């Protein structure tokens, strides 16, 4: 039973993932689409845990679902989407879709070499991860190995070998912020700026107006 648990968990959550993916593409209500996507993310997060990628699984839930999917939901609910006209087309195209799925999956699977990946054990010289504790990194020193948690392992590599890519990712995010703001901004940003053309093209009449007034006395 103990040995079967990972398998069972895997199959259940895999099934949930596939089911929710299917629902994503077949639902007519876009809100439901997004919600099912969220479900898919949750289920695959469990799957990632099974593959001992704990940090990523949690990040998936916290950041991806928590932020990005929430953003999706905001936008979907904000836009006024017409649900009615979309239902009837789907049934006509479903067989085509199923065939396409089968074909694509088949082709992707065909490319797998036979029997290479059958072994389930990790290759030797792997880091055994038994701790799921991400908050307190515990360094257990064995004879000549340092076992790190997944987070620590990621951190060790990320800021040393891949620091350049890390910085680039930061820049990408910055660019995304600027782009999103620029795109969605409604009115002009009220900043004091010079318009050289207007300055040069002014006429005297725009600036000075002589008025004759009677003296007050």
């Amino acid at each position, binding site marked *: 039973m103990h040995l079967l648990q*990972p*398998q069972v968990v*895997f199959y259940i959550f895999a099934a949930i993932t596939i089911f929710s*993916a*299917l629902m*994503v*593409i077949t639902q007519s209500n*876009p809100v439901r*689409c997004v919600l099912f*996507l969220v479900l*898919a993310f949750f289920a695959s997060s469990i*799957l*990632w845990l099974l*593959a001992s*990628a704990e*940090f*990523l699984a949690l*990040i*998936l839930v916290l*950041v*991806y679902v928590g932020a*990005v999917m929430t*953003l*999706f939901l905001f*936008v979907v609910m904000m*836009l*006024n*989407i*017409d649900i009615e006209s*979309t239902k009837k*087309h*789907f049934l006509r*195209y479903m067989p*085509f*879709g199923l065939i*396409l*799925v*089968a074909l*694509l*999956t088949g082709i992707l*699977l065909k490319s797998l070499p036979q029997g290479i*990946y059958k072994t*389930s*054990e990790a*290759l030797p*010289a792997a*880091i055994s991860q038994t701790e799921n504790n991400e908050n307190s990194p515990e360094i257990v020193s064995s004879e000549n190995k340092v076992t790190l948690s*997944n987070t620590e*392992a*990621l951190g060790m*590599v990320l800021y040393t070998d*891949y620091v350049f*890519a890390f910085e680039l*990712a930061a820049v*990408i*995010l910055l*660019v*995304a912020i600027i782009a999103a703001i620029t*795109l*969605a901004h409604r009115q002009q940003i009220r900043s004091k700026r010079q318009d050289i053309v207007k300055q040069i093209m002014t006429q005297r009449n725009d600036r000075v107006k002589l008025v004759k007034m009677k003296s007050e006395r």
Partner: protein
Amino acid sequence: MIPTTHYLILSSILFSLSLVGIILNRRNIILLLVCIELMLLAVNTNFVAFSHYYSEITGQIFVFFILTVAAAEAAIGLAIVMLLYRNSGNIDVNKMNHLKG
């Protein structure tokens, strides 16, 4: 524990489903973006599985960055959809044939 092939099969099924979702999309743009997210999920699963098999942390690093970029892209994509909605009043895919030759 779990054979890597299972992960790969799952990943390919998810990928194909999302492709189908894109191709047979007759509804709205949101579905397009959602399916892209699904595709990215499939790819990430693939990376994680291989990372687990080879005991290399590199695969997970890559997933990290994919997540980053996916977030950025989702943000910008949604901004564009917002603009689209603002300018044409709906986000029906059938009405978006301005690239027609």
